[in-house]
């Protein structure tokens, strides 16, 4: 394989363009540093009509939006998925880890749920509370100013609730709940489950003149062409380019390793250009990894040298360890009251308008850590699968006959349309040293780069938490006079606990800490071993909290980027 080298030396090379990489690009380039962004996928702009899927009706797809090419359906804006041709990963023993990758500018921020929750004070100090896992070396007060800045820079709607561990921010006003969400509010409150307006990074109100305001098409997973939701490209990288930053974008460029010199310092990266299958080298004074927790760990582990025989930043032997994903559990139900409902446009934003933060004290429970509840349902856009088993809900009325043919099917279709609700729990798992990704010594991808092998087992804490989710959902569903669509999964099915990785909140592979023996990066996400390499994706997360990781990735990336600027000013690079 040919290796090409450019003579230019960048101040910073950023690997990956999702939440962390986008934030680093914006902050560092606006400070006047020259930046190379190296992205494994193609250029993507949600406003590009060639790439746009927003506002497309199902019949613009020959498969009516089915998920055969894109897992979450044709219109979901993630190029990649659980399985990418030629880029496999392997599993140890009975591990069944799912690894979702999105190869495109902006990465997974183009399709994510926009749930933008701050970690609370307790979330950084869980070991002090329950003795499990590890405390972060920083606390809420360290990160609060950055959450505030992220709120104002990117925009998030929500309400002030004055809850200690669900800190308030600088919110835009939330949209009103939908009909099924009102059913949820009343039913959850009957069980003393707190319900409040959601906190999503969608612009219900104008934030600045560069971005539009939400027009309620429910298409956030399709990425917004007026930039009214947060995607890293449209809200961080494009504005940084517009404000004159020195940014060179390398797309379709898969980073293989961080290169180092004789002193063991990073000198840049080597990457494979997917267009010509040639390996290139880029020189940089600082390397910022933001390729996603597992991809960044993979790059570090593959960056072996005389100075770093165990992989870069891996003197602790902890790179890849403490991998953990959110727990997940779901229940779906039929609300008989909603049959033959009046139809109207209830699309709203691309996500729920209300949710439940964790509301209980674990002292009274048989598991550690909590979960939040997400709500879905209603008069959704028809797509492939709509109308399947059209009248199987007949069974809820004691009619043990379904199917048939003829125009009565049209009536059945309308009768049951919009009559379901779904509840999803997304919770905190405990990071385990024994859950990890490592390099598979026997396998390379189509670019010749050694691939990851996963080793992951849930513990009793997660399994019992999943059971609690199911019991809670059942009670709430009962309260609203609804009927679950399927039986509660039992012990043999881990009470419906999702597979690790499935919630796509994988974090922890380059954990943060003050002691280089038991952590990979310091509080500024800087490798303990190599001062000019930083990791600004979710790798440094010590614990996951019962929150979605993106807002914390953004705040930490901003904080670390400011540290990089400070060090540049001190001429430390």
């Amino acid at each position, binding site marked *: 394989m040919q290796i090409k080298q450019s003579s230019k030396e960048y101040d910073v090379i950023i690997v990956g363009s999702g939440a962390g990489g986008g934030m680093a690009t914006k902050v560092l380039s606006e400070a006047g540093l020259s930046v190379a962004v190296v992205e494994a996928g193609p250029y993507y702009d949600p406003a590009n009509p060639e790439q746009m899927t927003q506002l497309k009706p199902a019949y613009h797809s020959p498969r009516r939006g089915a998920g055969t090419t894109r897992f979450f359906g044709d219109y979901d804006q993630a190029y990649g998925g659980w399985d990418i041709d030629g880029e496999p990963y392997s599993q140890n023993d009975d591990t069944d880890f799912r690894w979702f990758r999105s190869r495109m500018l902006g990465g997974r921020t183009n399709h994510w749920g926009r749930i933008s929750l701050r970690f609370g004070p307790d979330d950084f100090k869980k070991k002090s509370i329950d003795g499990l896992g590890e405390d972060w070396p920083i606390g809420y007060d360290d990160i609060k100013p950055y959450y505030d800045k992220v709120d104002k820079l990117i925009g998030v709607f929500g309400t002030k609730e004055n809850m200690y561990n669900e800190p308030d921010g600088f919110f835009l006003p939330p949209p009103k709940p939908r009909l099924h969400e009102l*059913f949820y509010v009343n039913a959850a409150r009957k069980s003393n489950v707190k319900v409040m307006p959601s906190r999503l990074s969608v612009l219900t109100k104008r*934030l600045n003149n560069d971005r539009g305001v939400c027009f309620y098409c429910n298409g956030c997973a399709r990425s917004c062409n007026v930039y009214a939701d947060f995607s890293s490209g449209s809200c961080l990288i494009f504005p940084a380019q517009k404000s004159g930053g020195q940014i060179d974008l390398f797309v379709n460029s898969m980073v293989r390793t961080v290169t180092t010199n004789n002193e063991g310092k990073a000198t840049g990266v080597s990457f494979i250009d997917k267009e010509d299958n040639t390996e290139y080298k880029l020189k940089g004074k600082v390397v910022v990894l933001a390729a996603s927790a597992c991809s960044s760990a993979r790059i570090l582990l593959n960056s072996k040298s005389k100075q770093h025989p165990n992989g870069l930043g891996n003197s602790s032997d902890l790179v890849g360890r403490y991998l953990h994903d959110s727990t997940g559990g779901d229940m779906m139900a039929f609300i008989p009251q909603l049959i033959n409902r009046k139809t109207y446009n209830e699309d709203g934003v691309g996500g729920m308008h209300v949710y439940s933060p964790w509301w209980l004290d674990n002292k009274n429970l048989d598991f550690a850590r909590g979960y939040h509840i997400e709500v879905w349902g209603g*008069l959704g856009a028809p797509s492939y699968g709509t109308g399947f088993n059209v009248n199987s809900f007949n069974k809820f009325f004691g009619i043990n006959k379904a199917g048939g043919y003829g125009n009565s099917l049209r009536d059945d279709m309308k009768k049951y349309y919009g009559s379901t609700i779904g509840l999803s729990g997304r919770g905190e798992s405990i990071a385990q040293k024994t859950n990890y990704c490592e390099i598979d010594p026997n396998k390379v991808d189509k670019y010749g780069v050694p691939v990851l092998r996963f080793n992951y087992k849930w513990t009793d804490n997660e399994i019992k938490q999943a059971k609690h989710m199911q019991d809670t959902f059942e009670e709430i569903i009962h309260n609203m006079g609804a009927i679950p669509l399927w039986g509660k999964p039992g012990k043999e099915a881990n009470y419906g606990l999702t597979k690790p990785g499935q919630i796509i909140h994988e974090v922890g592979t380059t954990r943060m800490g003050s002691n280089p023996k038991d952590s990979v990066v310091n509080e500024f996400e800087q490798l303990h071993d190599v001062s000019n390499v930083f990791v600004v994706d979710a790798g440094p997360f010590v614990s996951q909290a019962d929150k979605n990781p993106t807002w914390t990735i953004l705040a930490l990336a901003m904080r670390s980027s400011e540290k990089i600027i400070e060090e540049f000013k001190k001429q430390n690079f």
Partner: protein
Amino acid sequence: MNRRDSIKTLTFASIGAGLLLEGCYGISREKIKRSLTRYEYGRTPEEKLYDDKLFAEKYFTNYELFTFDKLCNLILPPNEFGNIRDAEVVQLIEFMAKDIPSYKEPLREGLIWIDSESKKRFNNVFVDCEISQQKEILDEIAYYDPNKNIDDYPQPVQWFNLVRNLTMTGYFTSEVGIKELGYKGNSPNIWDGVPQDVLDQYNLEYDKNWLDKFIDQSKRNDIAQWDEKGNLIT
């Protein structure tokens, strides 16, 4: 289409789906061409290649497609909103069989079964049976107990369930079907809550403590500003 037309279709079987669509569906050649190239839906170059490959392949014979046309019309007869041809249901079945290859054999085997059943009972292939005869066959495979697993039913019941599912989804994801269903979204609008008459119908109201917190849609275009405590002041 009468018996003679169906024989004509058989004659043309090798010529391609286009002719079938033109002859049997009364759709112009120009329209067919447009329908094959009109799918502009944000594909990556790799996805486009995959779609092109599926479009280039022909799986069902014209006779088989014609049988599906008959079946789909029995499942959802035309009404004032539309019909399965407007909704391009048969085209969807052809496409999905290629897109989800595990559909291929079961879909074809069901067609073979229904013709052999028709010949056995009425000495005719299914499409040439009288409607009452067609319904007599369907009545025996069209129903199931929703408390039971469909996979435990005989093949013809499972097959018809699949054809019904594809027909229903094909119709209700089409332009005419979406309109008939009453889905009104996927278009720019301002969401300002559940309509009052709907709230009244279910005896619901918005939490009074929340009402002041929701977006005031008349101010949605005023640039957001906050005081230092995070209170919105615009």
